[in-house]
């Protein structure tokens, strides 16, 4: 059980927690957090499995994860902006109930 397996399995676990959060939690902020968890899970798997190399770990997964982090922050920022705007317009924090018809 060398250490790349620990992080690989940990990543898998965090990804599944993220999937659970995305599907189970109705609150939109929880969904954003869950999406970030899924991202971190995938990154852990990527770099974890990138460590199966002799010598210095594989740089390509690291580059991919760096790009992934920036993309995830972009997605999160847009998601939060929409959630806040939706809240200001309708006062709702979930997608379950239909909003009043207020086309601005």
């Amino acid at each position, binding site marked *: 059980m060398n250490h790349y397996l620990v992080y690989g399995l940990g990543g898998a676990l965090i990804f*599944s927690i993220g999937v*659970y959060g995305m599907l*189970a939690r109705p609150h939109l902020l*929880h969904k954003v*957090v869950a999406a970030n968890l899924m991202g971190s899970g995938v990154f852990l798997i990527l770099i974890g*499995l990138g460590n199966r190399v002799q010598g210095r770990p594989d*740089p*390509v997964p690291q580059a991919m994860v760096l790009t992934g982090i920036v993309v995830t922050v972009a997605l*999160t920022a847009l998601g939060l902006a929409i959630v806040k*705007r939706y809240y200001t317009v309708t006062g709702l924090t979930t997608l379950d109930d239909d909003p009043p018809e207020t086309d601005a």
Partner: protein
Amino acid sequence: MMLVFDIILMGVIVWIALGSLSPRGVYKSVVMFVVFGLFMALGWVRLGAPDVALAEAAIGAGVTGVILLDAAGHLRQRTPGPILERHVRRGVAPLPLLASVIVFFVLALLVVNLPAEADGLAPLMTAGAEDSGIKNVVTAVLLDFRGYDTLLEIAVLMLATVAVFSLRDAPDILGRRLAGFAGPLLDSFTRIVTPFMLVIAGHLVWIGSSEPGGAFQAGAVLGAAGILLALSGFASPRWAGRRVVRLSLTMGLLVFIAIALYPLFLGGTLLQYPDETRKTLILAMETWLTLSIGASLVSLFIASASPGPDGGVA
């Protein structure tokens, strides 16, 4: 010995991840998520990925944490607690649990069965990095070998900023003065920390080609400094007229495009830096990128930050 540490660290990370989805309170789960980001940074250090650790700490935990906190504050602002609680179902939803267990089982099976030794593209990359003169292989991959990914990634960041701009309620938020906390504690903290952050950002850019660092990490630190200044109301964005902010946001992308197209005139392909000027070109590009990434992260925070009832950012 280190294995035990790894297992404990991963156990803590997983436990915090679960905590960050606890149905009790959104505010609590956001704070837990920020802690999760910090521990993840620790994990990256253990996995021999310092660049990623820096980025995770600055962007993953830092910027994401700030905008999440701001959103949580905004959502708690207008309506009292009950709206929040009504939607928080107690207990565990069966179907999503089943889905996540299946996903975990499949992934675990895959991870375990993959061969223990696999060097992927590492040897090719390290060999390539030697003759390109950039010692930090990750920066070499990011800006040189797979520079096209980074070009599109910068486009994603700028696109997100433009998207958040298009969503804000006030017509022209950029000129708005964010009345921050005038408290003495934040003032003194900002006065001391900001100069250091700017120096660190410059250092990160400079050593990016040889040591862990580079445009993203430096940009993230710069962004954090900007958000700190905005929060404490020191340098309110009024000094940034509409045009200056937009220019600073797009200069990174425009310079990147210019440098990418430059080799075309010399008979090379896109992003094929000529050998002799490779380092200087990459450095020039990295500085502008840092400026733009910093500006984007600050704008993401300011554009979406909503003025609290008392004017301050909740």
